[in-house]
């Protein structure tokens, strides 16, 4: 197992390089140069040229890539000109907030999605199945940002159950209770779509597995129906559910951007949108690379979980 | 007797493992270097259990799989490219699974026209005439032509598969388990049809199967394959009645026969060797009651005897 993890980590290295290259090339497509963006359109050509030289932007593309990559490897993601602070510091701070939000949403969508899918499949065409199918359909059709706005309107403004926005109270203690009351609505709004997707897939994966011959074998042995569903069928269905959980993790991690805007959550998504609108290229680059790298690592964890579950995967 | 099909030193090794840039870690020999000759008008049966390399051999013979070593000669001319379109005119293939060998989204007419159009460049009228001819010879009604494959039973679909192979006008057919997906009562129909076609069109068959009684009933000669090598070759009426290779004997004794008492023909619970870690010498020696130290030294060569029988064994039975 240890060897498998190491093997997967090593195989992630080219992927990480690929990510930096893709991000760099996308950013290199930006028309105009960042110096003009920084100095404003009234800057003199001499000043622009000087800043370009200072930023190393007069070097050829490939050289710039390796300089940027080399700096990143030593922990230097550059300086955000709009915020005037190191990119890495800003990203790390913001990423924490995103991680709390997306992590909660991920746990919610995995747990409730799988349970709903299993119940739905076990009672195919029954009342529970129809009810779950309808709710799931509603869930995957509603834009998360719209859902978030409606939740604010109802639960925060009308019922006053939860704060309207932010991650912490403006006045008062920053304790777990405060965090939870701020976290509840955004986490649910973020989790709804992903829960729907997981539930749908779990249902069809379960239905697929329940027709297999080994389920008939379990029944012929006299195993309780409970054991057939939760021990035999779900275990086998998890083989196809886990990769989807991996994709959904990416979805909540990046879909958090809408929720962060709606709920004023100080996460990395909101930071990126602001950076894009102010053309703070180094901050965009650094943020995207950092989040993508974390996601790559998470997917390795998914693969490891998969190999623990399925002995047929060669480790 | 002219050779319709001649294989010289034909072998196939599949690469296992290896990454994007690295060389493969290991090779699995699916077919060991093999020499075989099929006379014109003959039916050569090839029999073996799963994993013996019989399907790999068949796919090489029609150019669907490039051989690792060796050459294939058809009617005296060597074919050195693995291009099914070149092979297709001279040697055709009838598939095991009759339904999955027909494209579900094409009508039978479209399926039948492909070889006529692509291999022979025939015009529309010629094609229609030729298809009528072929359909008559395989006892299929022409109204089937505008239907789709899912509307047919296994036996009918296999007739269509045979008709397609005939359309290419090749004189050699590779029949890869052509009846093993069919029910017993339908098997006999298809086997008899194949016998009629062979007589009417002067075809040469290579009949691959795992079913001993079927292969014996249709073949002139039979080659027994074990672990990628021919271990015995002889006339159909002799080979299972008086086997010379211990493996052939094991096969013959294992076939369920009405009235014979049930005893496991081999004492141990042994099965095929591991292809990733093949044994030295004779591949059968671990299961063989006659094995000696000699059998472990080197694989026994296939040796011809006076009566035309060939056997690859250091200690053959008397036959």
């Amino acid at each position: 197992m240890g060897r498998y993890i190491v093997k997967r980590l090593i195989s992630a290295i080219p992927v990480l390089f690929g990510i930096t290259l893709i991000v760099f090339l996308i950013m290199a497509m930006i028309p105009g140069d960042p110096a003009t963006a920084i100095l404003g359109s009234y800057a003199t050509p001499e000043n622009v040229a000087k800043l370009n030289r200072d930023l190393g932007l007069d070097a050829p593309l490939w050289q710039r890539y390796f300089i940027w990559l080399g700096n990143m490897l030593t922990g230097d993601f550059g300086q955000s000109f709009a915020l005037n602070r190191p990119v890495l510091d800003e990203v790390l701070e913001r990423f924490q907030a995103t991680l709390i939000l997306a992590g909660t949403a991920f746990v919610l969508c995995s747990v409730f999605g799988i349970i709903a899918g299993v119940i739905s499949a076990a009672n195919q065409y029954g009342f529970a199945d129809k009810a779950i199918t309808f709710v799931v359909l509603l869930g995957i059709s509603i834009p998360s940002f719209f859902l978030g706005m409606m939740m604010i309107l109802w639960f925060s403004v009308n019922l006053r159950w939860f704060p309207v926005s932010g991650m912490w109270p403006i006045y008062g203690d920053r304790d777990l209770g405060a965090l939870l009351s701020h976290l509840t609505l955004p986490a649910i709004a973020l989790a709804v779509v992903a829960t729907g997707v997981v539930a749908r897939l779990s249902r069809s994966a379960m239905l697929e597995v329940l027709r297999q011959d080994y389920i008939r074998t379990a029944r012929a042995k006299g195993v309780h129906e409970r054991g057939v569903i939760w021990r035999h069928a779900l275990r086998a269905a998890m083989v196809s559910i886990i990769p989807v959980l991996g994709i959904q993790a990416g979805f909540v991690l990046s879909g958090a951007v809408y929720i962060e805007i709606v709920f004023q959550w100080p996460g990395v998504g909101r930071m990126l949108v602001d950076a894009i609108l102010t053309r703070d290229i180094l901050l965009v680059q650094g943020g995207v690379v950092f989040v993508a790298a974390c996601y790559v690592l998470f997917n390795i964890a998914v693969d490891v979980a998969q190999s623990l579950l399925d002995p047929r995967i060669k480790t | 007797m002219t050779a319709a099909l001649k294989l010289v030193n034909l072998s196939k090794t599949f690469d296992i493992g290896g990454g994007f840039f690295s060389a493969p870690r290991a090779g699995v020999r699916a077919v060991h270097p093999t020499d075989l000759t099929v006379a014109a008008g003959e039916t050569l049966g090839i029999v073996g259990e799963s994993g013996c390399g019989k399907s790999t051999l068949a796919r090489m013979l029609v150019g669907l799989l490039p051989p690792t070593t060796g050459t294939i000669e058809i009617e005296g001319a060597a074919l050195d490219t693995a291009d099914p379109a070149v092979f297709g005119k001279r040697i055709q293939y009838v598939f095991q699974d009759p339904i999955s060998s027909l494209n579900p989204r094409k009508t039978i007419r479209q399926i039948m026209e492909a070889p006529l159009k692509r291999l022979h460049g025939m015009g529309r009228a010629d094609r229609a005439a030729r298809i009528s001819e072929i359909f008559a010879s395989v006892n299929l009604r022409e109204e089937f032509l505008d239907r789709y494959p899912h509307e047919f039973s296994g036996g009918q679909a296999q007739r269509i598969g045979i008709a397609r192979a005939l359309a290419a006008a090749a004189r050699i057919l590779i029949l890869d388990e052509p009846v093993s997906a069919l029910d017993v009562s339908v098997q006999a129909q298809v086997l008899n049809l194949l016998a009629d076609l062979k007589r009417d069109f002067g075809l040469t068959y290579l009949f691959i199967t795992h079913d001993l009684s079927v292969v014996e009933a249709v073949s002139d000669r039979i080659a027994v394959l074990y672990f990628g090598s021919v271990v015995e070759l002889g006339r159909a009426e002799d080979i299972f009645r008086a086997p010379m290779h211990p493996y052939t004997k094991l096969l013959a004794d294992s076939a369920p026969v009405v009235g014979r008492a049930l005893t496991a023909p081999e004492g141990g619970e042994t099965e095929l060797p591991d292809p990733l870690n093949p044994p030295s010498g004779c591949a059968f020696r671990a299961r063989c009651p006659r094995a000696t130290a000699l059998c472990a030294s080197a694989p026994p060569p296939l040796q011809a005897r006076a009566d035309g029988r060939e056997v690859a064994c250091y200690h053959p039975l008397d036959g």
Partner: protein
Amino acid sequence: MTAFLTLLARNRLALAGLVVMTVVVVLALITPLLPLADPDVTDTGNRFVPPLSPGAWLGTDHLGRDLLSRLLWGTRLSLAVGFAAAVAAATIGAAIGMIAGFYGGRVDNIIMRAVDMLMAFPYILLALAIVAALGPGLINALIAVAAVNVPFFARNIRGITVGIANKEFVDAARLSGLSNARIILTEVLPNVVPVIVIAMSTTIGWMILETAGLSFLGLGSQPPQADLGSMLGEARSALITNPHTSVVPGLMILVIVMAINLLGDGVRDALDPRLKSGALSRPMAATRVDRRSPVPPAQDAAAVLDIAGLQTQFHIKDRVYRAVGGVSLSVKPGECLGIIGESGSGKSVTALSIMGLVASPPGVITGGAARLHGDDLIGMPYRQLRDLRGRAVSYIFQDPQATLHPLYTVGDQLIEAIRAHRPISVKAGRARAVELLKAVRIPNAASRIGNYPHEMSGGMRQRVGIAMALANEPQIIIADEPTTALDVTVQAQILALLDDLRRSRGLAIVFITHDFGVVGQLCDRVAVMYAGKIVEAGPTRAVLDAPMHPYTARLIDCVPELGGGKRRLEAIPGLPPVVDKLPHGCAFADRCDRVQGLCRAGTVALEHTGNRAVRCHFPVNERQAAE
């Protein structure tokens, strides 16, 4: 095409989706013709007019613009962008996926590495990066959304293509002289198109959501032009004071996406052949029993298992397949009964009906009884039935690869079989499992117990299957073609093992097979089935030596006996009848050479004479059979 539309129409939800979508699309198309206010003209004097006001049905927004007009124009824009993105992503992704899947090898490797690289991004993040590079704007948002979805299509379609490229019909096309390009276009593409359509119809809703999302963030459509997303984005600041400006575009997105999703599910259900045949329904814990006729009495008091007049049907759509049409059998203690027949004869369904293991839906037991020591198993409460399964009656199935759970060790599966019926410690269970593996002569039983099924050969797996059936010392084992998937040398080993076990343990066995050789070696008595009914039964030797039913006689002649050399075989012309359209009289009449008018006149009864029984008016070998 018409079949597709009927299927779609049968699905009421999909139809509702289709109706809503049609209305929305038509409205979007005729928007420029409608007498609407200019969507972009501001009128700050009339800000935030509430809905249902004169002149502004849906009210106005923060700049006094008419919301109805903006809604329709916005819908038009959102739909256009969503569809365009979906079509672009599907086309490019499918092309890439098909090329990678068809050519395989290095081409596949390079393409799929690149796809993996793109999929390594949390995908909205990638869309953000692309918009960041191209600059905010609706077209750029479209490009970003399409680009981000290309890898999903590519991967999906590649998987399908690999499956198709390995199909035998592609090889057949090669041998028919088709070039690679032609094979892709005429063999692969037509089989991939339904999948592309399914993938598109289920993702188009996403695309609309995602473009709306980018616009919501201010990265898509730019003012004054608005799509639904940017309307929502602009309304956000007035969410609390004037919620209607948010609710209107938000609900519109919800309605559109929901309608598309309903329609998409309908399209998927209509195009997916497995769903079409109802194959994806979940089999219930026990077969449904719906006995319309009185339960027949037991026939043989001494029998372990006594089946009387068993009828099992499959109800698929409006068709009724009578798979088992009244079968009566009995098995005495220690006896081996063979049931022989071709595919579709109902032999396996008979075997599975006994313990309620026929998949239901679509299976229904509609009549008869199966008594175990006098207790009727058909219609028994599930609790009692479950308790008997694997304890009193156990099964061995055909394909040992598919019948063992792939993710549990064989030891765990054996222990579970024991623990389903009696509490036993893990240690004792393990010891018992090793004992069972030894009983079925698996070498190194103690170490093999930790193996997963895929680590064993077919023969070894079937031994595990037998061990599992023996786990609770059952009185009767039902073996459903247990050696059909095995090689002949392995089959001989397994048959010898079963024979030993039955003699040493006094087991009763019901052995289902299509092979006369196997029946002849193993079984004391045999029943021959044809089209759901027993046509002949009797002691094995007697039936094989002097078959009385013409079908039995001719079926035996179809199987060439080993040792006879090359010869012509006796074939039976025609095909067995399909069990949803059984003929009025004898089901074999159309293929029989002894047929007379009487055979088609009415049901033929199973006539018993001594220990033999035959369902025929004109049996063969009558004199021999009597001797």
